[in-house]
């Protein structure tokens, strides 16, 4: 396995592997444990920093400074908030469906961990490089509907129920354009493997080949993460806090964590699939990856702090009647494009 210039983390991983005898089962198990610990840490880190970033960006856009009290320029604010949430009372509503209500937040975070396992963070830095990587990612993130529904139902609260219903309806409608928008890239690369998709972009980023796919993906991903202008699940102006109305303390914080982990995931997928992943000159791959993810995150934050919210039927209308045809058209165009390309360069494709 040539790992030239692959950077710090890969070397560390090799070192640890070497300690346990290279490719033995023990080494595999140890690496899996370490990888999952890293992913957990990454989720916590991503959520904490993204929450702060969100508040800072929101502040700047609104002519405020954002959090500015704790630590240098307020950079420790979310840490303090997390501590506060940890210390809060965990309230179960009397009429709640205890098991469903209690398990929902854990599923949110569990699914995020499952998804984050297949993202290529840098050259050779894919915790699990599945053959069906991107498809696995979509399949698992489709399951994120369930915890939202569980939260909405389990709370036994009318606002929460409406929020849960919206979550389900919204995710079902946006899952399909999301999948289809990524299919164009899959058609070009002929693989679902995340690392192969990144490798295929060493010359040209797929945002240039798939601009329509990128646009559709960005919109669908905004809806998938329940962020404005598609934040109907929370919809605070009509549903107070939607599906999370009854949640308190750490359980609520887990939802929050899940939301930002999801934000990170969709940004990471966009960076991987459309922006060339960790490819880039001079800097190590994982730094390039971080830069691209931050760019996507900023895009989502920017949308959130500029746009009002769509109505639920407009959201459905937009998803089914605008995005879906667009994404199908994208697939068609890509197919035609590949066909023409193959006529010119018969070598490519299978």
């Amino acid at each position, binding site marked *: 396995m040539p790992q030239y210039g692959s950077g710090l983390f890969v070397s560390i991983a090799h070192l640890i592997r070497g300690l346990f005898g290279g490719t033995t089962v023990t080494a595999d198990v140890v690496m899996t444990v370490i990888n999952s610990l890293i992913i957990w840490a990454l989720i916590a880190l991503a959520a904490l920093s993204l929450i702060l970033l969100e508040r800072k960006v*929101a502040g700047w*856009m*609104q*002519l*405020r400074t954002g959090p500015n009290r704790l630590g240098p320029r307020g950079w420790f604010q979310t840490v303090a908030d997390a501590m506060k949430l940890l210390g809060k009372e965990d309230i179960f509503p009397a009429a709640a469906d205890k098991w469903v209500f209690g398990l929902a937040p854990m599923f949110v975070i569990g699914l995020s961990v499952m998804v984050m396992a297949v993202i290529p963070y840098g050259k050779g830095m894919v915790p699990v490089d599945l053959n069906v990587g991107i498809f696995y990612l979509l399949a698992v993130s489709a399951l994120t509907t369930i915890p939202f529904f569980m939260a909405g139902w389990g709370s036994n609260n*009318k*606002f929460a*129920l*409406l929020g849960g*219903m*919206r979550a389900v309806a919204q995710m079902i409608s946006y899952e399909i354009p999301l999948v289809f928008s990524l299919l164009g890239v899959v058609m070009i690369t002929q693989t679902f493997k995340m690392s192969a998709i990144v490798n295929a972009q060493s010359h040209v980023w797929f945002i240039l080949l798939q601009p329509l796919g990128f646009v559709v993906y960005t919109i669908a991903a905004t809806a998938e993460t329940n962020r*404005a*202008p598609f*934040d*109907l699940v929370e*919809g*605070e*102006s*009509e*549903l*107070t806090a939607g599906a999370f109305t009854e949640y308190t303390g750490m359980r609520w914080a887990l939802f929050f964590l899940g939301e930002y982990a999801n934000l990170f995931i969709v940004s990471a997928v966009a960076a991987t699939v459309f922006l060339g992943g960790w490819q880039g000159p001079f800097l190590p791959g994982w730094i390039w990856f971080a830069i691209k993810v931050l760019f996507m995150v900023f895009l989502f934050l920017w949308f959130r*702090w*500029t*746009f*009002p*919210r*769509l*109505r*639920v*039927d*407009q959201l459905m209308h937009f998803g089914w009647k605008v995005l879906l045809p667009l994404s199908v058209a994208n697939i068609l165009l890509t197919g035609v494009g590949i066909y023409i390309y193959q006529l010119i360069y018969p070598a490519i494709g299978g």
Partner: protein
Amino acid sequence: MIKTQELEINLGPQHPSTHGVFRMITKLDGETVTSVESKVGYLHRGMEKLAESRTYTQYIPYTDRLDYLASINNNLGYVQTVEKLMGVEVPERAEYLRIIFGELQRLASHMVAIGTGSLDLGGFTPFLYTFRDREKILDLFEMTIGGRMTMNMPRIGGIIEPPEEFWPALNKFLGEMPGSIEEYHGIITGNEIFQARTVGVGIISPELAEQIAVTGPNLRGSGIKWDLRKNAPYGIYDRFDFEVPVGVNGDCFDRYIVRVREMEESIKIIHQAVRDIPEGPTFAKVPKLIKPSVGEVYHRVENPRGELSFYIVSDGSTKPYRLRIRGGTFVNIQVLPYVAPGWKLADVIAILASLDIILPECDR
């Protein structure tokens, strides 16, 4: 047709989007609202009864607390009513100052209306932009009278003279205002999502508006050109040249855009007033103890939220025998059960926001 179970939801009295303590009992079929029952009165403080135990002057600060976003307009309405009862002639300069401050207050109030309107549709940032500009107006008020929300500024027979530094600050504000309105248009009016949420939503037909006696921008949004400043001028409004903007469809967007255009008209009025304001005293000769003769009086003014009128019965003592307030919100809110059904839950919030209610005025 697949039927779903009807869901009864209490929006309010504690709810982020009911602008205070307003309660809507909504019945939902899925997301579609089938009926709305509006409940008011959670903020009832007996404002009318309080007047009976306060002297005429002492009641002025209470009118601040009717429509707290337009306190100077309330003050003016009340003060002019008492002046009408007593037959007091207010000095020219005071009249002009009243126009300036009344219109500044209208601007501030409309800024809140469009800002919170955007907030209720989920757009948080425009809300803070409007509040940034409102802050400038409040600074002007603070400079003049010392209050920001509850100004208690006009007095029976006059108004308080603003300090020297007020005039340059006012000019600076007026200079910045067109840019700000341009910004509102950019971030709210022109936004396709905002338009999708408001155009054609919650149409109040002119007939309905007339039957319920809706007033203010909500009435004008329905296309009826009725503005007391033009149709029954009080103070010296007849001397100013301004348009009465009206909407076409009577939907939420029209009510919004009428407010923005009224802001532009208000700026025009302030410009004219600043140009024409004469020198002179700002207080008429009024006895220290206000004791109107026996009689009754009715006076109405155009407030940012519709007509505000006072009806005072005097028994010749220093306190009103009976005082009755007709607030715009209380009437405007009554269209909700007629307009809301058939729309989605989020639309009801949009309609409520476009009505621009303020509960203290409604419940009194």
